[in-house]
Each structure stands twice: as C-alpha cells, then as structure tokens.
C-alpha cells in the first residue's frame, strides 16, 4: 500500500511520518515512534491496554487509524509524568498495588487521567464505571480504586497546600 505523509502531534511534539493509510495509531506509536508504553492486549478494543488520549478523550488506539488523528493532540503514557517525576496517580498506583504485572497499567492510567480531568472528585461508582472500559487480570481492580482515591486525596492536599 502506498504510504502517505502525515503530521502527528504526540505528547506535545510534532512528527512527520510516512505511513500506510490503513496503519493503526497503536502500531504507529509503538513501531514508528518507539512509544512502547502503550500496549496491545487484544486486537479488537476489548481490553483498553492501548488507551491514549486524543484531544483529552480516552480512546483505544488499536482500532483507530493513525491518519485520522492528524491535527489532534495525542497523549500517551510517556506524556503523563510531570516535570520528570511521577504524578500523584502514578505514585499511588505503585504504593497501593494498583499495578502488578503492569501491562494494563498505562491504559488504566490514561483512562483515569481522562476521568479526573472531567470529574476531579469521582465517587466510587464513577471510578468503577470509568475503569470498566479496561481489563486487568491481576488485581481484581480493588487496589486500583484505592490508588485512584489516594491520588485524588493527594492532589487535593497539594492544591490546599498551594492555596495557602
């Protein structure tokens, strides 16, 4: 298939890429840009391991054409950490046992990022509903809820501290 030249904006950087029109966003991220933090767990948007943010919305990159994302701002897990440090959410996922094998973790982090952007103080039901788009086989999700709650609390504390 003849390749096309596209511009893809990922994690605040613009990349010029020659890709096949049928290339999936996941494959382009992983193979062309070496952003391997985004994972493939299935092939049919069942599992959410490939979740990235497209203009702030959590999307599964395994069933999106890369070419369709031109002009949009894509954020992958590599674009999440703040000033070279772990975000409160990343830290709490580690502390609370929200990540065991870690394979689904980037997808969950992206999903939660998008949840918290919309709803900074989610209820237990909100968290469960948001997380239901992603599958994990290790944790039974419980320690992830704890991680999200801990992250929300930490952010709130930090905000309160900054406000003083």
């Amino acid at each position, binding site marked *: 298939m003849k390749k096309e030249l596209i511009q893809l904006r990922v994690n605040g950087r613009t990349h010029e890429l020659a890709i096949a029109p049928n290339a999936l966003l996941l494959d382009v991220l992983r193979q062309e840009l070496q952003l391997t933090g985004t994972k493939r767990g299935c092939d049919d948007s069942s599992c959410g391991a490939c979740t990235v943010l497209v203009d702030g919305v959590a999307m599964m990159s395994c069933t999106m054409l890369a070419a369709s994302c031109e002009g949009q701002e894509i954020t992958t897990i590599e674009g999440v950490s703040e000033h070279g440090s772990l975000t409160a959410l990343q830290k709490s996922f580690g502390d609370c046992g929200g*990540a*065991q094998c870690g394979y689904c973790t980037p997808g969950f982090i992206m999903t939660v990022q998008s949840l918290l952007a919309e709803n900074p103080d989610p209820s237990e039901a909100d968290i469960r509903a948001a997380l239901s788009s992603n599958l994990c086989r290790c944790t039974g999700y419980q320690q992830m809820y704890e991680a999200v709650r801990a992250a929300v609390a930490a952010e709130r504390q930090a905000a309160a501290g900054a406000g003083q």
Partner: protein
Amino acid sequence: MTDFSTIGKSTAMVDAARKTTGAGKYTDDFSVPGMLIGKILHSPYPHARIRRIDTSRAEAVEGVKAVVVGQDAPNPYGILPVGHDEHALTFDKVRYVGDNVACVVAVSEAIAEKALELIDVDYELLPAYFDPEESMKAQTDLIRDDKPGNVEKQYHHVFGDPEKGFAEADQVMEARFLANEVTHAAMEPHCTLASFELDPHTGRPGRLTVWSSTQVPYYLQHKLSLVLEMPMSQIRVIKPLVGGGFGGKSEVIPLEIIAAVAARKAQAPVKITYTREEVFWAHRGRPRSIIDLKTGVKNDGRITAVQARVVQDGGAYCSYGVVTILYSGALLGALYDIPNIQFDGYRVLTNKPACGAMRGHGTVNVRFAFESLLDELAGKIGMDPSEIRCRNLLQPPCITVNGLRVQSYGLPECIEKTIERSGWKQRKGHLPAGRGLGMACSHYVSGAANSIIRSDMPHSTVNIKIDRDGGVVVYTGASDIGQGSDTMTAQIAAEVLGCSLSRVRIIAADTDLTPIDIGSYSSRVTFMAGNATLLAAEEVKKRIAAAAAKKMNCAVEELDFRGDLVVKKGSVPRAVETDQAEVTHAGASASGRVEGQILRGSLQQKRQEELPNDWMTFEEAVVAAIDFQGTLTGTGSYAPPQEARGGKHHGAGVGPSPAYSYSAQVAEVSVDEETGEVTVHKIWAAHDCGRALNPVSVEGQVIGSVWMGMGQALTEELIWKDGVLMNPGLLEYRTPSSVESPEIEPILVESVDPEGPFGAKECSEGSLAATIPAIANAIYDAVGVRLHESPFTPERVLAALRAKKHAKALNLTEGVDPTAPKSFREHGGSLSYRGKGAKRHALDAFRSEAPAPAGGAE
C-alpha cells in the same frame, strides 16, 4: 514480635515506576536491527493427517525471507520429561484447531500474513474427539498412537482403607461435578524475539539470544537446546517484564521454539507475537474436569473416607497434564485430616488445545467438588458448615495419609477470622430471601518439593555481589511475572544486610547472568528463591561483620546491621541521633562521612580510626571487608529437605511441598430467581501466608486469586463447537470487569513457617480454589439449589431452580444441560435452547409425557 526494618512493611514494587510510566520493557517492546516478523499458519481442522505442505508460492512473495515447516526442527519436546510429544511445527498430524503447521518470516507483518494464505496444505481428515469420556472409548484414529484409549495417563491411589472408612460413616454422599474449561487470559499476549550472533571464530551463526514472555527461562533454555541441538551454554534466555502468567507461560509455548528455528533458517532476528486468538489456542489452561466424588462423615462431623474419580479433558498434548491429574488427587490431602482416600485419575487426550498449569494447578476443580459436598453433608448431619471444617483439622506437625508433610497450619485461624469478620454466626440464615452466605476452604503448595526434571540440583540459587560503592547487587534466576518476586528478593536482602531498599539492585532471569532458578510456577518463588536470597545475604553479611568487628574491636555477635549502619549493640551513632529518617530513607547518600571517598579505602580507614569505634556506615564496613578479604560475594542455594519430598508410591512426586498455604473464605451472594443472575456482594478471604513480607503485595495476590476464582465461578468458560473455540476474545471470554467485581476483604494470617524465609509461604494461588465452592454454597444458602457445574451462569442457575420447582432430579452434569439437544451439549454451549414436547430431554422438568401434537405450536 520480631522487629523488622524492611519486611512486613508495605512497599511499592521495585519496578513500579517502570510500570506506571510505560518505561518498562516487555518482550514485544524490543526491536533489534534487521528484525523480521513471523506469523504462524494454524490448522483449521481438529484432527487430520498432513499429506503434503507446499510452501513454494509463499516463498515467492517479495519480502518473505523464509517459510519454516516441521521438518526444519523435528526433535520432539514437552515441559515434562514423560511428555515429549510436541514439535515446534507439527508434520505428521494436526491435533486441534489452531495447531501449528508452518511459519512465514517476512519483513513486515502484512507481508507475512499475505504469504500465509499462499501455503497449500493437503489434509486427510480424521475423526475427532471432543469429549473426554467419548475419547476414552476410541479404538481407532487415536490422537497419539502410543496412547491407547486416548488416555495420556491414569493413576489409581489408595491410602488407608476407604472401604472400611465408608462402612464406618453415618452419612455417605456421592455426586458428579463438572468444572468447565478456563484459561489464563493474561493481559500480555505471548511474544518471543530470537536472534543469533555471529561467531568470530567460525564466522557462522553461533550464540542464540532469546527474549521471551516466560515464567521459566531455564526450562526454555533447556528445551531450545533439545530442539535446536545446541549446547545450553550457547543459548541465552532473557525474561524482560512479563505481563501476567498465571501458569500460561510456565512451560515452553510453541512460538518460543518456532521463533528460534525461524531465526536460524532466515538468518536474521525474528519476533513472533501472538494475536489474542492465538493466545487462546496456545491455552495450557485449566482442563474441563468431570469429578465423581464420594465422601463419608460420622454424625460428629469427622470425615471417614473420600473417593474421587477425576477425568480431565486434557486437549491434544501432554503439557503439564500428568502433574495436573496427580495434583487433583494428591491435594485431597493436607487440608483436612482424612484417614482414607481413594483416587482414580484419568488425563485424557482430546482434539482441543492442550491444557496445562493454571493458578491453583490441579486442585481447583476437585476442591469445588469437595467443599460443595462437604457443605451438603454438614446440612445432612445438622452441623454448621464452619463447624464441620473445624472438626476435621490436621494436628501438625504431621504427615498425611498420602505422605504430605505439614508443619505450619494457619487454617484454624483463617476459619475463625473469616467467621468473625463476615458476621457468619449472626447473619447466616437471617438474610433476606435470595441472599446467602457460603463458606469454603482451600490450600496450596509453596513450591513443588520435586522439580520437573528429577535431580538433586538446587531449585533456586542466588548470588550477591557488593562492591566498594556500597551497592548490593542480587543476581537471581527467579522470574518476576508481576507477582513482585524482585521486590521480595530485594526486601529479604535489605532486611538481612540492614540496608535500605534503594541500595539493592536486582538482576533477574537472564541465563547468562543469573544462577539457575527453575522458574515461577507452583508458587515456589518466595519460599525457595527467598530462602536462597536469605542464605546468600547471610553469607555476605558474615564477611562484612567479621571485618567490622575487627575494626570496632568487638565480637561479631555484638554487631547490629540496621539503617545502613553497622552498630555495636547498645550504642547510638551520631548520624542516627541527628537524622534517623534521612539515614534510613536516603540510604547511600546519608552515610555522609565517606562522600566520594569510598574508592580510596585506606584514606577513609585512616579517617575512620579517629572516629568513635562503636559504629560504621554500611559502605565503610563493606570497604573494610573488601580490604581484608577481597571480593565480596555470597551465594545461597535452596533445595527442599528430603523429609518434605513425599512418599514412595507411583506418582508420589507431585503434591509434596516444604510448606502449604491455607485459606478460608465466606462469600455473600444474591440470586435473582427471575433471571438466574448471581451477584457476589462481598468475599472475606483469610489467607495463611506464613509471614507477609510485603503486605500490600500479599493482599493484592489474595484479592487477585479470589477475583480470578470468582470469574471461574460465574462467567468464565471456553465454549467449543466441533473443536472450534467460540469465544476466543477477551470480551467474549468474559473475565469480570470492574463493575462486576465485588469488594474482597483480604485477611492475612501469619503462621510463621519454620522453614520459610522469615516464616513466609505462598500467597498467590491458594486462595483461588475456595472461592468457587464458597460462592456455590452461598447460592445454596440463598435459593436452595446445589450447582454442580461451573460456571454458575444464569442459564444453569435457572435450570437448577426450574428442577427444584418441579421437584425433579436434574443431573446438570449429564452433558452440560440435558434439556438441550446433544449437538449443543457436546461443546458446553447454550442452555437457552427450548426444545418442544417430546424433543425435550427425559429429565427435563418441562417435558410433557405426551408427544407434542404434530405441527402444533407450543
């Protein structure tokens, strides 16, 4: 309680940041220059002879570098020495839909996929077997010629005098249970990257490096050596991060061998990554099991005898099958005190993907049957289900009737705590209609006492190197697959050496660098690799202590290793006085006195002589030890003691373990009698882990096991139609999502095993098995039906409710649903079929005696 500095405190895994930032590399994240992509051609038929394979058209495709077939690597292999029945690519017959026939390697995945379609295979179809009991009747067209009756292996064990036991019983119950097939569904699809390097002396391809998503790097190295006819020393296996295993990566999976064979033929590095559908075909999950169980009890609750006949639908290859069937019998023992046991086990070949080891290997389905029947017996003799379990406790230390040695035994405390936390005594029997509580127990080995390859070699070895920089490097072959074994290793080393966790660096699971460890399976790593780490750390510590004692002019026994310091007992170092937190937390940087001076040992020692002689920093002590004795290394090995290796009977090698974990659980469920839907509200799970080295991880393992057991209890099931898997996708297979996952309350019980590292035992598998019967028993408590077939789908629950309502005996395990037509039943499929009139099964509660009127609508 002993005062520990590192263990027993919840800590983030040492690789947590790599996981939460996406920086950590899993096998599929690696690429090497010139790498080709391999795609495998799978059989579309369940059983067929291969007459001819023509690869010429595929080879002609631009971009295809090689097409590999079975003849390229004809040596058989298998995980068990008694089961070398697999080939990288099959060449005589295909034995299941998905069997591996050929592999195309090309410059891109798209080209390889296109070329696959151009391979012509001429098949001669053979009759296929999908049901184990049918398969056992086969006379011709056997799946393997050397296995008459398609029986891979059978065992008949008698311990004590079961006949006498049943005669003594006041109540004897018999029932058939059926547990359908489940699979691991780890989030990371299997992946292998194989690359040869050129030998400078011969100029030809020499050493092979394989990166693979494996739980068992050492076994992979061994099997690659067999198939490729290369010395093991020429093969390096590296296990990067692994995205979950649960047993699915605990043996050599076809792609691991195929990638290496393909790399050799294509003369270039080859990576193969399974699609999700291929992962389901690779399988090695928990076999569908038919269990005929008979248990006798006295009116006082004491179990007098157990008889179990287990038939496992093993799929087309041996895999771990011999071990699985043995576990299903052996682990009838070591949970309760059962004086008489008869076990008849059959591992049967069928034309489906091979079953193997899955979390709770071998014990889970039998435990479902046993705990369900015990619950029923408790009802018969009018005893509380928790009480009957307490009446049958072991009296450790002891050796069970089938030769299993039990030392630490936290089961009584597990039962007590779950009852207390769940409010069992107050709430059981007083819940609203449709809601119920159920209890069950389980246990598991902390590592198999006998390795797969019978030998006296250590099961785990760990090396520790400490150099003048004060860094502690631990080399372990143990495979972290997400359970946190690297963190466990670091914690044990840090605890022994009294240093901070940040000082410890783990180099793991690389056969070139790390000593042999037989892998992450049978929940062996904490116990065995943990013990090896403990010994290695103690050896280095001894040498550091000798040097420090000499420096401080005191006896070795007077020294304490703590907070990155070596301290004479009773004295308080200045650094600790000023800033305790800084010292313990920041580790290396806090030792202050030797900033940048470590390499100039003598200078530093000179300085030190001027200082008080009652404490040293860890670095100073290390430098002193190196100055006195040279290189500072320690090695520790672990092999299970002879007394823990089991009896002498045929098959006695499987089941023995140096220690067993214990679990007791209570499940609270509600059942919708209209829809048959079961909702689990909460599970209380007490687990005896010996000692919780990292409590947050132990709790995570317990929650994860219980959750996975709940999946098998309610939704997970592989559904087959004529040997074709109907649900090879993560949504169709239905692992529970976050909205279906209840609260699980883990309760850690620490029985402190006399041989475990700091008393620790396994925590990752033992809890799974109790969940299924706990839910089954809770369903009975809620709506009064006994479900003998898992998973307890709405269809099965409704069928049972229907049978109860019409007061007809409905044996739900005769086929899947006897009310469904045979073509539905054979593949474990739908129960929603509603036949008409006489078409209904003889046992169907809705069947009318008179045949339906011709042409009449029902």
